[in-house]
């Protein structure tokens, strides 16, 4: 589903972030990527999403090299096949919860009927007319998860999705995210520093200067 082929990315001559990175993510996989700060986790997500381009190598989504696409084509690919969950939630403050969740459907010209169902699935039934300012941090992240999955994307990318949440709320959100990704039949790639968060994935990869290394798991939730 996702294939990384010999990716190289440097921000300066003396700051090589990713070096000859290769990896294949199978459809339906839910993977956590861990690693030290500055090792390139966010860069990796940006490259996968087509928000940044590698210096060399290819990122293939179902065989299509996203880095070879122009901005419009990459944007359309992202719009249809990706969902995003951010550490800082990034919900639009002046739209209602329903409107925030419906954004990907609108961009994809898809019917809006799944919005109420999605709200219910993330535990916010009946609150679609609320504005983000009326929600707690955990609830905001639930909105972000609903928005990431509303259009049934092939791949959900999550960047420190629980970084701003207390452990209890974080636990609930992670559980919800896994459940929804699996229920949608999507793949998931979560970048995190949190071992608890990583433990919710099918398996964990450690990003180092030598590439993505599998971490032996003791089991997952």
């Amino acid at each position, binding site marked *: 589903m996702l294939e990384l082929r010999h990716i190289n990315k440097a921000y300066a001559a003396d700051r090589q972030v990713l070096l000859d990175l290769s990896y294949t993510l199978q459809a339906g996989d839910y993977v956590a990527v861990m690693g030290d700060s500055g090792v390139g986790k966010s860069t990796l997500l*940006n490259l996968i*999403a087509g*928000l*940044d381009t590698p210096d060399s190598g290819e990122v293939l989504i179902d065989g299509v090299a996203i880095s070879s696409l122009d*901005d*419009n084509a990459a*944007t*359309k690919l*992202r*719009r*249809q096949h*990706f969902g*995003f969950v*951010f550490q*800082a*939630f*990034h*919900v*639009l*403050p*002046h*739209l209602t919860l329903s*409107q925030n969740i419906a*954004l*990907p*459907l*609108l*961009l*994809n*010209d*898809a019917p809006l009927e799944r919005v109420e169902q999605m709200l219910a699935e993330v535990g916010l039934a009946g609150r679609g007319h609320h504005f*983000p*300012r009326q929600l707690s*941090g955990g609830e*905001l992240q639930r909105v972000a998860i609903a*928005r990431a999955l509303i259009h049934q994307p092939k791949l959900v990318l999550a960047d420190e999705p629980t970084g*701003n949440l207390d452990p209890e709320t974080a636990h609930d959100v992670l559980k919800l995210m896994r459940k929804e990704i699996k229920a949608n039949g999507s793949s998931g790639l979560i970048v995190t520093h949190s071992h608890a968060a990583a433990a919710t994935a099918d398996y964990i990869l450690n990003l180092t200067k030598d590439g993505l290394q599998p971490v032996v798991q003791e089991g997952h939730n």
Partner: protein
Amino acid sequence: MQMKTASLSRWLIFGEWRAHIVQWLAVTLAIALGVALGFSIHLINTAALNEFSAASKSLSGQSDLQVHSNQPFFDELLFPKLVRHQGVELANPVLEFDVVVPEKLDSRNDHKLKVMGIDMFRATAISPDLLGVTESGEQLDRLADDAIFLSPAAMEWLQVEQGDALQLNVGVQTITLRVAGGLVRARAGQRLAVMDIGVAQWRFGYLGLLSRIELKLSPGVNLESFKADLDKALGEQFFVTEAADQETRVANMSRAYRVNLNMLALVALFTGAFLVFSTQALSIFRRRHQFALLRVLGMTRRQLLRQVMQEGAVLGVIGSLLGLALGYAVAAMAVHFLGGDLGSSFFPGIQPSIYLSPLAATIFFVIGVGVTLLGSIVPAWEAAQAKPAAALKSGGEEMAIRKLSFPWFAMACLTLALIFTQLPAVSELPIFGYLAIVLLLVGGIALMPRFSAWFFSFLLRAKGSVDSGAVSTLVLARLANAPHQASIALGGVLASFSLMVAMAIMVTSFRVSVDDWLGQVLPADLYVRAATSGHQGGFQLNEQKAVADLAGFTRADFFRSQQLILDPERPEITLIARPIDTSDPSTTIPMTDDLMASELWPRGVMPIWVSEAMVDLYGYRVGKLVTLPIGDKTHEFFVAGVWRDYGRQFGAVQMQLSDYQVLTEDMSSNTVALWLRDGVTASQAERMLRQLSFGSVLEISHSGDIRTLSLQIFDRSFMVTYLLEIVAVIIGLLGVATSFSAQTLARIKEFGMLRHIGVMRRQILVMLAAEGGLLTTLGMMLGFMLGWAISLILIFIVNPQSFHWTMQLHLPWGSLFVIAAVMLVSAATTALIAGRHAVSGGVVRAVREDW
């Protein structure tokens, strides 16, 4: 797809507006005010010009050509020649003049009635609207020796009806006529009297004289070649014109005034556009995260650009529509309360009505929307080009806003402005002068980021040696290190303050110059006028002697003035003959420095002194030999000096009264200037004058009253300028309000962080007020310099090129200080009000969350 995109667009626009309704209302209001000003001024000018043109046209009827002389009247012997001229089907003689209405003498500027003497039989074919309508239907009454026919407006003004007696002044006598009826048709508000031409010539002393002859050509005659041939055959004393020439002349009279008002309105619109730019720019930078998110979620660059532009377009459409409605209402009210000339006396005696032209409305609508889109396009472009991954992280705002700052562009604008100040007028309009003003404003604003960075860095360094508190460090550090964000707020202050300074300096310079000039041109204590009698001034020799012999005066100077036409496409010039001290003309005339000493004058040629307009419009220069039609023929004169005339923008010439009398043998005069003997009061002198046998018809004015009245007229004619100034102030303050509130909103996380680390709410408020105050102070300092530069362009380029007069520079320090204080207090208060919201409880949360 369209439906969904439209929904998304609508959600985003309304969501943003709902959240910042005051900010967006302010922008909409600014656009509306700009459009309203431009549109109302256009409507008023067009209505007045159309009405004035239509009124003029109604007087000349359906003639193909008109023959005029270069003097107001000419010998009627030309008439039979034109009747017999090949190609002429009908020739119609017309006598047109103004008479003084004794009952209206109290109104110094509105006491004259236009009288037309027409041939009642010939007029049937050429100007039937002007025919008198008698109650009995008795046609011969039109020829009665006491019959005068009045338009409805004239009857209303004079408060007379058919059959009433009407007294009118002729020279120093009063004659009584009978209101024999109305006119077939007259335009609303048009004050006009019509008489049989023979009766008018006799009763008003114009025997043997005509004003013009209207010609209707035989079918098949080529108008252009006939006109050229006739022009040649009649010689230089006569002009042959078409109706279109008359319209051009009417339009030329007020063109500079109209263009100036339109330009000032456009400047207000430009300020509005800058306000749109700054609000849009700040709003977009505040929403960088949101736009980045939309890009990540799949909105293309083009869609985002369209979204931001749509926001601007919707604002532009709403603002422009409001502006059109407001402009129409303002125009209707202005015409009702100030008249069609907005108090400037360019279109006297007409009553225009506002006509809503769909084309004009469309043009102003397009300008309003266009200007708004122009204000949105640069920030929209930046938003669309931003890299979403970078924009999702904070801290990129200053970098993004930096892209909107172009020092090279600023320098290019300022250099171009400097070059434009050196270029001459285009079609007698100061087009390059106005362009220079716009470029100065744009260049000045674009240079602000560099300047404010330099200025506040300097302050920060200077403060480094002084041990002062955290708040002042925070304030100066932000202003020095985020100069681009600060400059956007600064730009609003700069644009409005510089315009206010420029207007204030220009109007004050003009007013002080006019006041000084009035002191020079009104040296006597009393000015006494008599109505004209035919082509003679009202005072004949015996009346002049009677006035001069009165005991109350030490000196009596008699003036003879008349109108001359030097170019049929231009308004008449005024010839003033008076006693002039040739050894030092500046004792009697407000001379400029452009003057030739009497020892250098050529022998055998009479001197004249010309106004500045004559230099600009007719190329008269000191020492030049020129010819003027005075008396029965043209004579050669040399230009001995140039004087300043704020009273007649189309040109005036002064000459010695004795020279005039030698050339014309006309010993009459129109006006006498009188100096009071010591111990005689003005009212005593007036009583003496009234006791003369012709005293009751004299128009007596005290120089002080003339001066006061003239300054009142000046202030009235600048009322629109003051209005524009007030609107510029309002737009400027709206700019300050929206810029500061937008910036404060954008910094809500920063304030949240500061509150977390222990900065008190009060300290943040002090910080915001200090930032607002410092920025406004810098904006005003620069605005003053820019405004001063713009005022120099207005005073030394725009005014001389538009109105052909120069003036001295005077700075109204007092008013400038008041304006500066008001701006400073408003800006600091606005910053505080915006800040109160920013330091409310929500900011603590803002650190943790995205919104």
